[in-house]
């Protein structure tokens, strides 16, 4: 089970409530970009014989130009494929995990940069959801910003589905945690005579 792998060192009594990834439309944008990149040489191969036939014939004359075009096309398609693969891995490995004890962020930031951060529910002060833009409003995705106590940086879920529901859930979990772990209230000292 992959959650066991993500939560490799659970706290006593800890259980995963839910986990999140970026909305599918974020990856769909990447797919559209790579499809356009893959289609570009095909489009050129269709248009060039019609509009610049001499150049087209020069490129496929069996000499250096043809060799270079074939090498370049091979590298181009391999590059498009490999970077598409990388984009998918990046999308898939970015996970936010919410348990009954903490919130965890596991983000792949480039090839050799992986960031894992966590925030205890006891440190959650406020949670805000932001849905900005036409597509984000239509498809209901956006940002959830968890404000923390003290100097700790805010915790942000980027481009997640149903941000309003998620912010409410995190707030309820933080409240539940506080009810389950009541803090001792400050005792007032002896009053004066």
């Amino acid at each position, binding site marked *: 089970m992959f959650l066991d792998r993500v939560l490799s060192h659970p706290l006593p009594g800890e259980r995963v409530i839910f986990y999140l990834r970026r909305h599918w439309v974020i990856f769909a944008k990447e797919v559209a970009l790579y499809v356009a990149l893959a289609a570009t040489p095909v489009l050129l191969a269709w248009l060039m014989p019609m509009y610049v036939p001499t150049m087209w014939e020069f490129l496929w004359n069996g000499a*250096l130009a043809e*060799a270079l075009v074939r090498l370049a096309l091979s590298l181009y398609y391999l590059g498009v*494929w490999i970077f598409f693969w990388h984009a998918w891995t990046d999308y*898939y*490995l970015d996970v936010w995990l919410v348990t009954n004890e903490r919130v965890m962020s596991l983000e792949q930031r480039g090839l050799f940069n992986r960031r894992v951060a966590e925030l205890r529910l006891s440190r959650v002060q406020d949670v805000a959801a932001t849905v900005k833009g036409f597509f984000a409003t239509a498809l209901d995705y956006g940002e959830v910003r968890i404000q923390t106590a003290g100097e700790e940086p805010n915790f942000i879920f980027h481009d997640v589905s149903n941000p309003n529901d998620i912010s409410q859930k995190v707030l309820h979990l933080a409240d539940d945690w506080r009810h389950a772990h009541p803090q001792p209230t400050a005792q007032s000292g002896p009053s004066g005579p």
Partner: protein
Amino acid sequence: MILTIPYIAFLGLYAIFLVIMLFLGFSSLYHLLKFGFFSPTSITMTFIMLAGTVYILFASYQELMMVDWSQSLDIGLLWQDINPL
């Protein structure tokens, strides 16, 4: 002086870029195996990506076999052609 560059030299340059690309590809695979999750999605996507890479390499091999790599480029002659003086 006529400087000659064999076409095979371009193939060597291509091989360097190919190795870099494959390194990037395998680093993604490494991340997926190290940090990823053995879910059906992960396994399917890994299979598709590997199959796609193999297909592109095979298609590239087929295409590059059509070129006569024993040819060479004469830089000196090329310079004479483009030099207006």
